[in-house]
């Protein structure tokens, strides 16, 4: 009897959650970056669900892979955004595996908008055989992708990552710079990386009428990122670097679709990466879920 009650409660909860998700989309106005973070935070109370993918083929006969993240980004306050990731990858002629999770938090220490806006980023990740390439640090390179999934999974990476995110909005342009420091919690040295991006909506003015493919619905830009070596061998050498144009489109139903072909800049890099993503933002998520439960309880 109790089992039935719990199942019913679970089902009602699930339906309320689905209702909240599918009736509450909001226009996210996101930057089209895949690796670079801007200083813009998630709006308080909103939940952004994002799926990001990277497809590439490593040099020297490596197998083509698809690295994916699903991200749940929540605006805890106007100055604090928290995000949880689940990572996975599929490699041709090998296997499809779950590679781990990440939890990140971003804080804006200085409130208000300035000519340059710092954000402090802190992340814990527990991954292995990850191929989503959400950042490049240390001496990361194409050869890291040659290992079989079975071997790569034995190398567990529990890492702490810190970033200083700097961002500016100027005449419609967003310019963002990230400085990355990552420490494997085992006895590995600190590793460093960078990411920079610039983007702009194709149209700055809002149209007076609803439109699907008008310029304001598109944002385009360029991003570049790479490693900076580690504590003992700091620099741009012996690590990979990428650059590529990037674009996104805000669909009318609250979805944002993004795409970026990215190109390796040296022999350590994967020659080409194709990144694509989808995101969907739910406004005032917790309020909707709790009010849904209140209404559900009153029936």
């Amino acid at each position, binding site marked *: 009897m109790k089992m039935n009650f719990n199942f019913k409660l679970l089902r009602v909860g699930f339906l309320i959650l689905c209702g909240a998700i599918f009736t*509450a989309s*909001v*226009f996210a*106005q996101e*930057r089209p970056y895949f690796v670079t973070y*801007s200083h*813009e*935070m998630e*709006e*308080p*109370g*909103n939940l952004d669900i994002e799926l990001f993918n990277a497809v590439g083929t490593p040099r020297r006969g490596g197998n083509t892979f698809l690295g994916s993240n699903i991200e749940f980004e929540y*605006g805890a*306050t*106007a*100055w604090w955004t928290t995000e949880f990731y689940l990572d996975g990858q599929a490699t041709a002629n090998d296997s499809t595996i779950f590679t781990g999770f990440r939890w990140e938090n971003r804080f*804006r220490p200085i*409130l*208000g*908008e300035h000519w340059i806006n710092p954000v402090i980023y802190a992340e814990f990740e527990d991954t292995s055989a990850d191929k989503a390439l959400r950042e490049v640090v240390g001496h990361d390179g194409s050869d890291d992708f040659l290992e079989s999934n079975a071997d790569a999974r034995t190398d567990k990476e529990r890492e702490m990552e810190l970033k200083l995110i700097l961002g500016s*909005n100027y*005449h*419609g342009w*967003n310019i963002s710079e990230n400085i990355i420091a990552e420490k494997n919690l085992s006895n590995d040295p600190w590793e460093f990386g960078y990411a920079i991006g610039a983007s702009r*909506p194709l149209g*700055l*003015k*809002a*149209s*007076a*009428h*609803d439109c699907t493919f008008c310029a*304001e619905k598109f944002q385009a830009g360029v991003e570049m990122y790479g490693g900076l070596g580690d504590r003992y061998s700091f620099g741009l050498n012996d690590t990979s670097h990428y650059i590529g144009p990037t674009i996104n489109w805000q669909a009318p139903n609250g979805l944002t679709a993004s795409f970026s072909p990215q190109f390796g800049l040296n022999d350590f890099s994967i020659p080409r990466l194709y990144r694509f993503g989808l995101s969907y933002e739910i*406004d*005032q998520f917790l309020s909707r879920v709790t009010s849904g439960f209140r209404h559900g309880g009153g029936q």
Partner: protein
Amino acid sequence: MKMNLFAFACVIALAMQVFASSNGAWLTKVPAKEHEKTNPFRDHADAVAAGQRVYKDHCSHCHGDNQQGNKKHPQLRSARVQREATEGDLHWLLVNGSMGHGMPSWSKLGDPQIWQLVSFLKSLH
């Protein structure tokens, strides 16, 4: 004892900041240059309609479809928004937000859309 006093002082300071923001104290923070800014979209025929679209997409979830607000978010048909605040004041608030009180910065919309939104807000009186 010193720690307790420090914690108490922090709580009081935070409470004062929240109270000040909710009381419209942000108006006193607007620099004179920003206060006097005029809306370049004031004479644009479609600025109000465009601003209404921006409002619907980004603001109505908190401030309500009819700008009525709720217990956490202020209404926008108030005397403060309609009479006390100049167009420049509203533009400054939208660019900078009032982050300690839950209002995010909307600088990502860009100046033209922010001014269109100001046109819409000022058309509500």
